[in-house]
């Protein structure tokens, strides 16, 4: 399973370092933070340093409904040629509009030096049985056509979906049946599942994303698309990556801020409130979540295995890491977790490995609870219970 850097604000030297050290296999640039010219320069720089790296650009076309809103926060997006809002009804009734957007989005990525192209799409807000669901299929078909007419290019279709659409299971399964039965299917998919919260609490993913039926559905999408010859790259998947890898994902992506670890449409809107610098955190493979630096020190005295015993643990010994080291530690831990969960060839073995990881985390947290670390414990155990139920739910959906 490949691991990609989800690019965003404040990249610094994280991408180059992650690629140079082999912690990530490539990068998914965000045009929101780069103009086309800057993106091309950044891509060229990375390719020179790491010729094997996959360079991708998320066209973020799904953000166009935000254009014109007084609190829109679109950064450089409106400088990109494909990023022009078009009414949904017009997209539905005039196929040439979809063609024009797909062509503009993929062509500019080619000019910027992307090695794998990501098709534009619309955001599916609440149900696959919707105008947006139909439009998403139209964009997929058009991206397949574009790829066929451009030999030598690798084009990922895109689905950007709100978690609610996965909860409406009958429509969700019907959509997946229809998608996998399309005569012209994409060979790869960029899949983003979003929620209503841009960040979780206490180093965990957002609560509304970590619901068993949502996670089981997300895993199921990875399974059926993979079974039907479509490799899935999961954007904004972070600590949920091992679940998706166990289900058959080809890749996942994670970045340094919480809005690069889980997806929310609110990321394109300015929200009131004072921004605080995020706490420095450590991703513990045993605990299956991030903990802050102080917790790491305290827990390590009581519980073996809180530390991952990987190279970047050193950045936390006796000092605080810098932001780049923190990111390297995350990628290093995610890579190791993915290896455990996605490594075995047999899906039953992968799910068993995942179950072992969740059990180990439950035992570790229970032990910490016994030692008196009860603050937030209920939420953590609830999160782990959701992961466990998600695995069961996935097994049922996958008919395993």
């Amino acid at each position: 399973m490949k691991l990609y850097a989800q690019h965003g604000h404040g990249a610094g030297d994280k991408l180059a370092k992650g690629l140079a050290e082999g912690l990530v296999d490539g990068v998914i640039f965000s045009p929101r933070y780069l103009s086309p010219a800057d993106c091309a320069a950044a891509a060229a720089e990375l390719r020179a340093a790491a010729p094997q790296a996959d360079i991708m650009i998320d066209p973020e076309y799904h953000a166009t409904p935000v254009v014109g809103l007084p609190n829109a926060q679109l950064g450089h997006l409106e400088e990109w040629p494909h990023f022009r809002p078009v009414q949904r009804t017009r997209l539905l009734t005039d196929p040439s509009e979809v063609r024009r957007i797909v062509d503009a989005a993929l062509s500019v990525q080619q000019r910027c030096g992307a090695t794998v192209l990501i098709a534009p799409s619309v955001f599916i807000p609440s149900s696959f049985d919707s105008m947006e669901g139909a439009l998403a299929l139209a964009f997929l078909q058009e991206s397949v056509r574009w790829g066929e007419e451009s030999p030598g290019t690798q084009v990922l279709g895109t689905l950007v979906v709100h978690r609610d659409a996965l909860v409406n299971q009958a429509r969700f399964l019907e959509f997946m049946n229809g998608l996998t039965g399309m005569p012209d299917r994409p060979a790869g998919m960029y899949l983003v599942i979003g929620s209503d919260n841009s960040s979780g609490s206490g180093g965990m993913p957002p609560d509304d994303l970590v619901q068993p039926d949502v996670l089981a559905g997300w895993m199921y999408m990875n399974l059926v698309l993979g079974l039907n010859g479509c490799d899935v790259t999961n954007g904004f998947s972070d600590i949920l990556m091992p679940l998706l890898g166990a289900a058959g994902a080809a890749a996942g992506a994670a970045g340094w801020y919480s809005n690069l670890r889980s997806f929310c449409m609110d990321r394109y809107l300015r929200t009131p409130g004072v921004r605080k610098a995020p706490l420095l955190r450590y991703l513990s493979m045993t605990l299956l979540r991030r903990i802050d630096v102080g917790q790491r020190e305290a827990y390590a005295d009581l519980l073996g295995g809180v530390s991952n015993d990987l190279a970047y643990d050193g950045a936390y010994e006796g000092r605080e890491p810098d932001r780049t080291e923190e990111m390297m530690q995350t990628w290093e831990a995610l890579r190791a977790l993915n290896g455990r969960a996605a490594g075995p060839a047999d899906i039953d073995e992968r799910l068993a490995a995942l179950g072992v990881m969740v059990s180990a985390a439950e035992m570790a947290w229970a032990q910490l609870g016994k030692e008196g670390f009860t603050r937030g414990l209920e939420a953590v155990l609830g999160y782990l219970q959701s992961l466990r139920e998600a695995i069961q739910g996935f097994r049922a959906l996958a008919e395993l």
Partner: protein
Amino acid sequence: MEHIPGAQALAAAVPLAQGLTYVTAGGFKAMYRAVVDGRPEAVKAVYLPPDVDDSADERAQLLARLTREIGILRESASPFVAKLGRISPTQVAIAGHQYLVYSEELLPGRSVREEIRFAPRPGMDDLRALAVALVSVIRDLAVGGHIHRDIKPDNVIRTGLPERPFVVLDLGIAFKVAGTQLTGKGGPPGTPLYMAPELFNPEYKQVLDYRSDLYSAGVTLYEYAASKHPLARRDEDAFTTLYRILRQLPGPLASHRPDLPPPFCGIVDRCIRKQPALRYSDLGALLASLEAIR
């Protein structure tokens, strides 16, 4: 079948068929053996029921569907499909009832149903040959935008011919007629054992595709290999069987046939998944996988 025409009456209505003798009947169709232009052929008479509401349009649509499906047979180049005979589809009236009569080649051998009942369990060569034949037919139909929807052991003949060891009969015709019965005003499904789960949901028909046939092929292969239907149980009521088809997971084929190569068992198991998305969508790749199994 209701109103099976007598051989003599049918022979009088279809003079091209010489020495016509009755063989069997089922559903809406009766089969006869005859010599046509000096060659033995299977003559088939499809009963056209009177319209429930006397709607001429409905009858015309039924006839059009039958004729279209026979046209598919005519156009099919697949060696695994029974070829049309010399009697073109003709509407005849016998004793006040209407029939559509046509002929197909007369194939040697017996049905897979009879093989399951009377022959020893098949080996890998036979199973691979059946799988390749079924998937090839489904793929060829899918290219033309068609689905068979009546693949079952009764509709496949084990011929013993090296170049076409298994041949599929009744290409679509039985479905088109029986489909009217199963989903019309007549009540619950009549023969659900080989129907994919999605066929029981009327809404689902909007997105039906060749993967429904793949399910039927998988059940046929499973039953041929294991001498046991993957879900139905002996003397079980229809609703329990229907529940199993819709909800219950079948045991893996390998549990009945541990002697078969695991990849083959895995393919059959995947063909009978309840969700079409979990079955195969690339039939070319599936054929290649089947042919690679030794």
